[in-house]
């Protein structure tokens, strides 16, 4: 039996605009998502902002009701068996909020130990283990308001693990961390899977997903557009090639013209300071460079380079399909 199961999960948000003439708008954040995560697996949800990643996690940890479809965690329905799900899952949302600033890290953990019903005699040992795990030992008596972003994020993880949950949901846990802090956190996450936890992770960082996840679902506009191991996803755009062309000031019409070139699978524009980089994915064995350059005639062109596709290319290609 899968540990996490989502079947045709949907979630619509209703928003209103205007003060006098109020208009109601329904936004479909998740549009029929189905996936399953096996025990001990680290499953990644990848997608651009607004793809529905956080909404899916909120439904799975019982903070949101699905509009349609169903989801189960460890066999418990997230709508009907709320307490059972809450006892067994932990979650970590990225960002600096969500902690009691005036309390020490230790008291933050103590409070959640009480809320999760960790027996008083076990709390001290459990908290010490967690502080050690996330590298906050020795800093636990300081107020959280003085913690760095990385320390806060590690405290979030310790809190999420307080009741030793079987399943942990991590929503962009390395967001905004410096490279060293992010690497330490990834090591912590990798250690959790070794300890037998089942993890569902969302991230924007492709290399992070590539390095950590056993399987990945790529989300775009509320739907899963691809699912598989990082290797399998890369192979979906494998056999092709990536051409990067640096240009200065290019309009959307030109980009559309490039997309129309035979053999071009996708074109993405990345802003790199003053320069725009056109990332053109092509079919294998097709030479499209002359046709591309012809369509860019009149535009200032910088460096042109070629490389093999990465997971990021696979991701961009998938969300643009």
């Amino acid at each position, binding site marked *: 039996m899968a540990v996490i199961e989502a079947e045709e999960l949907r979630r619509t948000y209703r928003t209103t605009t205007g003060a006098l003439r109020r208009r109601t708008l329904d936004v479909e954040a998740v549009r029929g998502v189905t996936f399953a995560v096996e025990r001990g697996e680290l499953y990644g949800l990848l997608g651009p902002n607004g793809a529905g990643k956080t909404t899916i996690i909120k439904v799975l940890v019982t903070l949101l*009701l699905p509009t349609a479809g169903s989801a189960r965690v460890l066999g418990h329905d997230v709508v009907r068996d709320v307490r059972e799900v809450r006892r067994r899952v932990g979650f970590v949302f990225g960002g600096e909020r969500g902690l009691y600033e005036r309390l020490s890290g230790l008291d933050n953990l103590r*409070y*959640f130990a009480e809320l999760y019903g960790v027996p008083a005699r076990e709390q001290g040992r459990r908290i010490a283990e967690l502080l050690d795990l996330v590298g906050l030992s020795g800093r636990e008596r300081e107020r959280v308001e003085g913690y760095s972003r990385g320390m806060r994020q590690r405290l979030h993880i310790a809190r999420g693990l307080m009741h030793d949950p079987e399943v942990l949901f991590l929503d962009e846990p390395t967001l905004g961390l410096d490279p060293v802090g992010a690497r330490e956190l990834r090591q912590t996450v990798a250690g959790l899977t070794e300890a037998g936890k089942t993890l569902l992770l969302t991230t924007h960082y492709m290399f992070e997903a590539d390095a950590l996840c056993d399987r990945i679902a790529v989300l775009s506009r509320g739907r899963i557009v691809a699912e598989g191991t990082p290797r399998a996803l890369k192979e979906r755009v494998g056999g092709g090639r990536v051409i990067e062309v640096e240009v200065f000031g290019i309009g959307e019409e030109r980009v559309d013209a490039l997309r129309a070139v035979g053999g071009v699978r996708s074109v993405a524009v990345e802003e790199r300071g003053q320069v725009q980089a056109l990332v053109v994915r092509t079919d294998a064995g097709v030479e499209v460079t002359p046709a591309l350059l012809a369509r860019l005639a009149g535009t200032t062109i910088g460096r042109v380079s070629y490389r093999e596709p990465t997971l990021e290319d696979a991701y961009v290609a998938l969300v643009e399909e």
Partner: protein
Amino acid sequence: MAAARVFLVGGVISYRALFNWIRPLSYATTMLGIPLFQLLFFAYVGRFAGVRDDAFFVVGNAVQATAMGGLYAMTMTVANERFFGTLAPVLATPANRLALFLGRALPVVLNALAVSAVAFAAGLLLLDFSLPAARVPALAAVVLVTATATTGLGLLLGSLGLRVRDVLFASNLVYFGTLLVCGVNVPLDVLPPWLQAVGRALPLTHGVEAARRVAGGEGLGGVDGLLATEAGIGAAYALVAFALFRVFELEGRRRASLETY
């Protein structure tokens, strides 16, 4: 057992986490300073106008001082969860909701008692007010009931704070409203009937009356009806507050409003 710990230990920790004026300087200036100057203000205005003696204003304002804790501290201790972004993590726990909610009231009631005691002490030291030691236990019991009832109203404001931005405006409104309609500084019978009705539906009114009678020498047995009414009003507010908290929690899951701020 877990629920009892959430009530007691969790209540104290959340109070330390969420009550804005817990640091000594802000506590002294706000929680103690405001009731003290309020007491002196009304006592001297009363003397100047020659309407009532100091004892009337000391008892009224010292009992009303429980609202500093009962209203403001209680509002903050619930509503600040939203401000700190901790509401979602707390509500994602399996903790017993009644214990989680009411546990926050315990430190607030104790704080309200302390604030009231300081106000009574100020009245004894600075104004023409005396209180035989034998009457202190009965008066403390009356203040305890009143502080608990006022905290019930504070719970309601706290619950509203989970949905309404800047709920402390409402706390201000209620706090200053009680000075007028609860018999604290103006006897209830000189108010128009509709204001009397408002006053009778609020905590404090029956507690202030009971405190005046006990301070005047009457025993607890003579004010048991007033205390029962006061406790009943407080319980009713607390009950509505908890119901509202649960409604907002469920509505938050349905409408994704838990983290809207």
